């Protein structure tokens, strides 16, 4: 579903991502872990076609992000770490905008908005202007807008930040359902317990380079993910 081959992204003289290779298959929840500034967001933004990259290739369902970004974007949904959204829209107007962009028929969009908004408890706030939303509410709206067009691949950057425990639980449920239907999820997180419980595979990145990747059992063996991570980081914090 998502093939990252030798991705390199340079800011000035700094190699933010250095020759990164990952493969996320359909049905997989893939966690992406690393310290602050390790290159997670840069990788994620490159996968979504938001950032251009110097070297390497990113394929989504076999289509190159570099050569055919539009076709790739039709297959993915992106949830950023800080959901800055159009404050001039109401929640429902924003969802309608996204639905129009993805050409979702009226009946389907109505059903999906109801389903997801009820599930993560945002229905009663949909008529409110986004400018009145809290961080968590914006995050919930970003989640609904990601699921509304039923993408093959969902890419999320710290999706659990700002969510209340109920919404957080619902999101995990949605992620699993999505992958059970054949979709894939690639997400970054600092919450190692979540990664441990939720992910089928994980990758740990440090200073732009891949340190380790594989199934949860392959990476952690008999230790906890936290121990593995701290060991790899030399005892530093996440």
């Amino acid at each position: 579903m998502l093939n990252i081959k030798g991705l390199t992204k340079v800011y000035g003289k700094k190699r933010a991502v250095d020759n990164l290779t990952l493969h996320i298959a359909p049905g997989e929840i893939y966690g992406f872990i690393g310290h602050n500034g390790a290159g997670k967001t840069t990788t994620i933004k490159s996968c979504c076609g938001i950032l251009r990259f110097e070297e390497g290739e990113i394929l989504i369902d076999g289509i190159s992000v570099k050569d055919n970004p539009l076709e790739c974007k039709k297959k993915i949904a992106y949830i950023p770490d800080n959901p800055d959204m159009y404050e001039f829209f109401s929640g429902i107007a924003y969802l309608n905008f996204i639905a129009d962009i993805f050409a979702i028929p009226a009946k389907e969009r109505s059903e999906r908005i109801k389903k997801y908004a009820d599930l993560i408890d945002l229905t009663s706030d949909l008529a409110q202007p986004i400018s009145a939303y809290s961080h968590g509410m914006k995050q919930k709206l970003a989640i609904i807008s990601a699921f509304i067009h039923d993408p093959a691949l969902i890419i999320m950057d710290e999706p659990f930040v700002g969510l209340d425990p109920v919404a957080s639980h619902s999101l995990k449920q949605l992620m699993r359902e999505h992958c059970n239907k054949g979709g894939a999820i690639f997400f970054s997180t600092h919450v190692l317990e979540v990664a441990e419980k939720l992910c089928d595979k994980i990758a740990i990145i440090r200073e732009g380079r891949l340190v380790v990747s594989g199934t949860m059992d392959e990476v952690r063996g008999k230790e906890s993910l936290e121990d593995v991570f701290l060991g790899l980081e030399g005892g530093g914090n996440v």
Partner: protein
Amino acid sequence: MFKALLKTRMTAFGALLTSSSRSGNRKSKIKSIAIAALILYTCFVFMGMFGMYFDQLAKAFYPANLGWLYFTLFGLSAFALMFIGSIFTAKTQLYEAKDNDLLLSMPIPPKYILGSRMVMLMILNFAFELFVALPAIVMWFRAAPFDAGLLISFIVVFLALPFLSMALSGLFGWLITLLTGRIRKKTFITVLFSLIFLGLYFFFFSRANIYIQKLVMNGQAVAGSFGSIAPLFWLGNAIAEPNIVHLILSLVIMILPFLLMYYVLSATFIRLATSNRGSAKVKYEERAMHMSSQSSALFRREMKHLLSSSGYLLNAGLGVIFIFVGAAALVIKKSDILKLILQMNFDSGLVAAVLIFALCLLASTILFTAPSISIEGKTIWIIKSIPVKPQDVLKAKLHLHTYITIPAILSVSAASIYVFSPPLEMLFFLILTPSIYVMLSANIGLMCNLKHPNLKWTNETQAVKQSLSVMLTMLISSAIALIPAALYYLLLYGRLDTELFILLYTALLILGWYLSFHWLMTKGAVILEEIE
């Protein structure tokens, strides 16, 4: 602490000029020189305009011993420019800055936060005042002998006058924020009040001739008997004589309102700066949904953004109101205008040509596209992550400009046709040429903003008003209307047929539109994809 806040503001302002807005890296030397040259050119144009104005006044008023009137007119002109320049900035700069919450969470007294923002507004006011003050004093000393006392009084007034402008614009911002704090239709109320305020302001200035005549007629007697006009006399006399009593009175009038405004604003700053989320909750009711195309969704997004931001609407679209007022004025004042034209003895073809250039110049005041990339701000990730062609995003921005501006400009075309009954061929150009010009100026605005975007603003005014792209667009668009008009009037009038000249001008506009549109759809689209 106050110094640290000021340093932050200065750094942000400096970054606008020295950093590349797309990458955040420092601008190249060539770009910095080009920007400096542009700023110098703007200063030259403004100061040149005021220089010509004050040159005429000084030559007439010094021999007539009307120095006080000369400096009263300086005060009024400087105040007018400062007030117009800062009125719409005050509200957003003071109360809607994105870092208000962050700063209020720190142990910083609100009066310091307010003060640091006001210093920036004050600098803006001084910059505007300088455009008037420098030509005014230079032209005076060209006509009159040097007088050190006069120069000192002039400098004192120069330093004090921005306080009065700040007092009024700050008060206006405070009132609007207070009124709209807990209502939903904030934009509508802000725009309405702004227009009422501007209407009153223009009403006062349209009657300026009457007041000036009154001043001239009554001379020195004004000081004692005409209570309401006396401050104008004091201001002029404080510099011209220079009269120390009048200087003190003028200083009190200029500074006291500012101190009162600062006291009121400091006392209410926290409440007002944090009251923008207090409107009543709207209950969501499920309704039937409709599907629309990508292009109409993108256009709706642009329109909604425009209509929800009073800063964007007023700063970029105020010209639309002027255009409609102009159309109404043409029809209402038809007979007076026709009399004036008869006196000037212009042929009907030339009248139509003048009208065409005037319409283009009017259209150059509308700047919807010039900040349209910058105002995406931190939400730029949305259009970059959804499956839309960058070309379609750019087209939606162009459509916003043309769909609003062309009908407005055509209303003046229609009024002109009704009033002047131009020859048939010029009637065609009166409709076509300004419309093409609007399309070209929309392209220019978007091109300038793609080349100079600012996505890292802390309040929307920085994107809408205080940006290089807006300044460039205004200059280029007005030059496209002014330079050919001046060229024709000074060099070609009588040698080249007016209709033929307008035909050539229109052809060049079409070519310019085609080339700029092609650039937008190719290089412009790539730039949009690469903006970070």
